[in-house]
């Protein structure tokens, strides 16, 4: 029986078990709860007020003051309008991309958490009492709406500053038109989240459509970049702008600018009406249709993720959220088991990749992004070149890390590996074979694509980096439990405590080491473009690989000591 069917059954049972009017104790229960929790609420209100103060302080220091500085400079003659045409050209597809991303984020968030997440204690005992569920749950919907709205206002403010400086649109008009999309899209995403939370079938659609929506958002972002570069496709943009709420937000934002599209006010009205209607439906669904089993499950998941985040166990947090959002795993592909003992772990890793083809796709996508970043490093100089190369290597590391999930599963609980006839460190070493081979295949494909552009010496650098990055991923996989004491490290710098930086260095030790050691030889090889420089970079990569594997071996032994 699938989780979705189980939720359907729970919902049916719960709808069947209505409290009668005589049993209803909502007002009394809530009043008692308010009285009992008054001290806690005061403390909580204080914490929230402090958090809001910190956020506002950061917003003023990093947002309002620099923006005012820019406007002041503009009033004294500084001209930022040079960027105006590019920004206006990028806006139609760019806002569509942001809107699709926002809606996707809302829908994905609702798969494991959702807009209606009461605290664990309320879920554990209050939902079982004879109280009206809608009155308990609706405040949490409105809390989510308020949070979404505040992000929307922030986005509108950023839009106002951008349009004000580059297109000289008056702040009031810019803010009003940007606020249409800024407010409506996050609220629409919240309402979509309620639909996902309410109907397991919608949740299934979100799971299936996520990759396509992701690709669509990336394609729109790409179109936006091309448009900014002077390659706009007006007829396509017109279709995108009228195709739905993602485009209506863009039309509204373009309204006060010289690039306004006819029908902007109509699109804004449509967006506001759609958002209002969806919120009304969401409000009704929270009272009538939201399965309590889903609320309980999401509350437990949210509490688990929060606990993991508080102990900075980021992988655990990701696993808990992904486990709740991922739906039922299925066995779609099988692979015949080998006969030779040496092939056992490679076979296990191949099965893992067959069961998670998304990991290979993500790896290929990241490699595809790393290659142009490296290309940028070839053509740029100074800091830009270094930043582009580091971005390329980071993307390369991320690509490889996607393939190392089975290695990470071993270190999540080393007792899993008690079956293995080799040491734990030896087992981890064997987990490098298949991810390394797959990453090499992907990188060779990328190298073949850039061969005509960059020449063989530069193309060879793509696969040359792979072994070191795989080894770096294994070093990170053998990290062990979070070293929380690093966060509280007493040493200070002029910018404050160094604890978080120390923690970050420990957390990313593998990739940071690989990037630091590969950056110089790869930069030299990219700029020289000669076979000798490429060989030197490849040899450096091999040496770094050996060093990192030794480090991984020591870390793996320490995990089982």
């Amino acid at each position, binding site marked *: 029986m699938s989780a979705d069917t189980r939720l359907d059954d729970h919902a049916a049972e719960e709808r069947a078990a209505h409290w009668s009017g005589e049993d209803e104790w909502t007002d009394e229960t809530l009043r008692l709860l308010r009285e009992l929790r008054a001290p806690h609420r005061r403390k909580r209100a204080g914490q929230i007020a402090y958090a809001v103060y910190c956020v506002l302080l950061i917003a003023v220091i990093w947002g309002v003051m620099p923006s005012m500085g820019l406007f002041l400079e503009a009033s004294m003659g500084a001209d930022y309008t040079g960027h105006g045409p590019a920004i206006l050209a990028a806006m139609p597809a760019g806002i569509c991309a942001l809107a699709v991303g926002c809606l996707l984020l809302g829908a994905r968030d609702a798969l494991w958490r959702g807009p209606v997440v009461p605290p664990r204690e309320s879920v554990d005992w209050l939902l079982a009492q004879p109280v009206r569920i809608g009155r308990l749950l609706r405040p949490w919907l409105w809390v989510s709406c308020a949070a979404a709205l505040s992000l929307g206002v922030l986005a509108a403010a950023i839009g106002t500053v951008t349009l004000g400086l580059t297109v000289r649109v008056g702040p009031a008009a810019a803010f009003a038109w940007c606020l249409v999309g800024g407010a409506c899209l996050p609220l629409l995403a919240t309402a979509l989240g309620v639909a996902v939370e309410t109907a397991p079938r919608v949740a299934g659609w979100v799971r299936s459509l996520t990759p396509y929506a992701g690709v669509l958002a990336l394609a729109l972002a790409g179109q936006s970049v091309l448009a900014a570069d002077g390659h706009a496709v007006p007829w396509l943009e017109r279709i995108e702008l009228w195709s739905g709420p993602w485009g209506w937000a863009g039309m509204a934002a373009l309204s006060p600018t010289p690039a306004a599209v006819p029908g902007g006010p109509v699109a804004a009205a449509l967006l506001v009406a759609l958002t209002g209607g969806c919120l009304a439906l969401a409000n009704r669904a929270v009272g009538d249709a939201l399965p309590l089993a889903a609320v309980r499950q999401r509350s437990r998941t949210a509490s688990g993720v929060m606990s993991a985040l508080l102990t900075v166990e980021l992988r655990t947090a990701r696993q808990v959220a992904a486990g709740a959002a991922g739906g039922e795993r299925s066995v779609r592909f099988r692979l015949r*088991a080998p006969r030779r*003992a040496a092939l056992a772990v490679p076979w296990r890793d191949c099965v893992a990749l067959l069961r998670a083809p998304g990991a290979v796709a993500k790896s290929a996508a990241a490699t595809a992004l790393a290659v142009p970043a490296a290309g940028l490093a070839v053509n740029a100089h100074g800091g830009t070149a270094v930043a582009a190369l580091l971005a390329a290597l980071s993307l390369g590391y991320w690509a490889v890390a996607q393939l190392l999930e*089975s290695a990470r599963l071993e270190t999540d609980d080393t*007792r*899993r590996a008690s*079956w293995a*006839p080799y*040491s734990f*460190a030896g087992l981890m070493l064997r987990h490098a074979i298949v991810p390394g081979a797959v990453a090499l295949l992907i990188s060779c494909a990328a190298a073949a694509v850039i061969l005509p552009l960059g020449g063989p010496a530069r193309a060879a650098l793509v696969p040359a980096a792979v072994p070191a990055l795989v080894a770096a991923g294994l070093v990170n996989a053998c990290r062990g439990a979070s070293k929380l004491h690093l966060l509280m490290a007493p040493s200070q710098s002029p910018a404050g405590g160094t604890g978080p930086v120390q923690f970050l260095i420990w957390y990313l030790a593998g990739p940071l080491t690989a990037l630091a050691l590969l950056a110089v030889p790869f930069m030299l090889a990219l700029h020289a473009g000669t076979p000798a420089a490429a060989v030197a970079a490849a040899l450096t990569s091999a040496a770094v690989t050996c060093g990192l594997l030794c480090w991984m071996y020591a870390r793996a032994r320490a995990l*089982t000591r």
Partner: protein
Amino acid sequence: MPVPTPVPLLRLNGVSRTYGSRKVLHPLDLSLKAGECAALLGHNGSGKSTLLRIAAGRDTPTTGTVTFDGLPMNENDPRVRARVAVVGDTTACYPDLTVREHLQLVAVAHGVEGAEEWIDHVLAERLLSAHSDALPSALSSGQLQSLLLASALVRPRDLLLLDEPEQRLDPGARRRLAEVIGAETAEGVGVLLVTHDAELARAAADRVLVLREGEIVADGTPEDVLADGYDIGGEAG
């Protein structure tokens, strides 16, 4: 079939374990012959699982030595890992491998001849045949426990270490567990069984040891030890 060895298969010599200032195990000696099953009984916190972890080489004793067939017991020594099977106190499996693939992985890695037939046999014995293509997330906790036991049985072994294997099993599965242990010892495998189930110890073990606050307070045949009415903090059967 494993060949019985003249030296004890497993020997703990003067082993103790201290965590900070808390002494969990007092210095104790224990030996286990090939083909013998020794059951460790005792209250929660009496040191049973610590003793088993030390016997499996997963924990280092504060004092004393542990040897397996004359070799220092070390979890990272491939010679030890190839011959010692451990069913621990966890149900952690690979979430992306089916029941059959778990067993295939273990059997292939240990170079088991005719692995598929043997796997079919073990699956049938552990009543997992109907779930052979299921992922761990679709199994009950009792079935997960059976899978872990099956993983230990599908590979070659001279020593089998079981930490409360009766947990999560229904009465029928517990009875079959006693039969499995009996079959293991008949084939010359040494079994160290940590359990709360006196009935299982009576049915499966040649020797029963009772641990109390880190000390062995009884060591004898199941009939003698269990008849003496030691408080073992579990199901006295």
